[in-house]
């Protein structure tokens, strides 16, 4: 799956409050990208490599690691779930969620007949990524004020924005619409499994947004960008 940092193009205007000089590049922690032989690289990758050889590189943040268990999407989701800087709690909730997903899927696997055993996905990371992909909206709405009235105008969304909306919807759904006694991992795993099968309240919210955008098609020409 595409990681957010690698797809973002370099900024024209640097971040105002960054402690780094704008010429510093993002670090790349994956071991595989350094083991590729020279011939396999495309033009862009070759230019990137040359640029990296000259420019200074930022320090890797504490959430980035070269281990197989660190996934940029999961780290982003954990950070969004975090409250008041309690990363330990957020991380433990995330790992409990993934464990619960695995348990549920393995239970289903053992109960299923022989023919269906291959279709059941047991890898919680695959389920997480697929569920997030299913939740991503294609088109969004933006409020534009014309002549005193505010219209909801359908607008294309960037990749980053889509990923962010999918994760935000999942988290708000799990926080608000759950029973007082259910734990967050349980509710999250439930939602993720539903989203993996294209069911559930988050997918419904996405469809509602698409329908609204379709209904407001007439105002699409208000967009000037």
């Amino acid at each position, binding site marked *: 799956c595409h990681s957010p940092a690698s797809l973002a193009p370099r900024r024209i205007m640097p971040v105002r409050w960054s402690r780094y000089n704008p010429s510093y590049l993002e670090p790349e*922690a994956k071991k595989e990208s350094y083991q590729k032989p020279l011939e396999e690289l495309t033009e862009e990758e070759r230019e990137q490599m040359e640029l990296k050889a000259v420019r200074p590189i930022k320090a*890797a943040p*504490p959430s980035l690691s070269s281990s197989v268990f660190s996934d940029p999407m999961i780290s982003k989701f954990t950070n969004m779930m975090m409250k008041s800087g309690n990363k330990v709690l957020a991380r433990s909730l995330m790992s409990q969620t993934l464990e619960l997903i695995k348990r549920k899927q393995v239970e289903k696997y053992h109960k299923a007949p022989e023919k269906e055993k291959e279709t059941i996905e047991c890898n919680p990371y695959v389920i997480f990524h697929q569920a997030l992909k299913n939740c991503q909206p294609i088109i969004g709405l933006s409020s534009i004020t014309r002549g005193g009235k505010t219209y909801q105008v359908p607008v294309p969304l960037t990749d980053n924005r889509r990923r962010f909306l999918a994760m935000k919807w999942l988290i708000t759904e799990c926080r608000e619409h759950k029973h007082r006694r259910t734990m967050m991992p349980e509710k999250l795993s439930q939602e993720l499994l539903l989203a993996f099968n294209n069911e559930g309240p988050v997918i419904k919210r996405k469809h509602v947004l698409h329908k609204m955008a379709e209904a407001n098609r007439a105002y699409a020409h208000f967009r000037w960008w």
Partner: protein
Amino acid sequence: TLRQICTTTAVQRKNVGASGPEKYTEAFIKKQIEEFNLGKRHLANMMGEDPETFTQEDIDRAIAYLFPSGLFDKQARPLMKHPTEVFPEQRKIQWGEDGRPFHFLFYTGKQSYYSLMHETYEKLLNVQKHQDQLIDQDLPVQKEKGNLAGSRWLTKIELEEMLLEKVSDDDYSRFIQLLQKLVSLPCADIEEEYIQKFSKEVPLQLQKVVIEPLQYDERGVAFSTGEGKRKTARATAVVYDNGTGKITVNGIDILHYFPVLQDREQLLFPFQFLGRIGKHDMVCTVSGGGRSAQAGAIRLASAKALRSFVTEKEVEFMRQAGLLTVDPRVKERKKPGQEGPRRKFTWKKR
């Protein structure tokens, strides 16, 4: 010419006031330069040195000797520098005696910026015309790969200094986009000179760091040390060869010292990246900072120590993975009039 008998005070004031007022006239600056040169010769005679070969560094040393100052602010101490460094460069008055401006773009408000954009676009059209001519004559259009890695564009502040007028962020980004478009065309070599005015060399190969050789202790085991810091934490790590992968921090095993998984992951990051998890032993000491800062400091220290065990190529890979850079992020200070570094006090209507 008709002599204006009754002029409004407003018109008179406008003629004198100037946009970007000329605080120092040319005559004044010339006089300052003459006085500076005279003073330089006097100073050289006073110090007993040759007036002809008296450089700026000698002047600074002489002034520091003759006027010793205990002030903390370096800029408050006595200073003797060439007037062009002391008085900032400024624009002369843009219009003549009759009130008619010299430059044809004066009434746009940003005359130098727009004239620059016009020039650059002219060069772009030139290049395109040249390209079309080459295609007409069926000559091959070669694309020379410029060194994009070795140069950078002028920053906004440098551009402002060059144009002697304020440039907004949008204008600056538009100018840079135009330059990039110019550079991306195949026959941009014609305008190489013009482009070089706006690009600067990036100092290549920033500080070749000397990697220390391995040291050997009494048992003949190779080891190397490294120091690291993060926020307020300072750490030293000693990495031994032929080990089992045991890591000790301040005499305590990492499993007890860092109960959080993320910190242990950070400690093992350099080893896992190089694929040497079970091969090295590590003994570290760390002080200051919090839980995560100490882990980051030890990570940097161990990465620096591992440089001696590993080939240069792998050192370069480690640098590109962000393992060898000191993290400059520190806690931002609290400002007066605000509750924290960013948070403002609650806004009360009355």
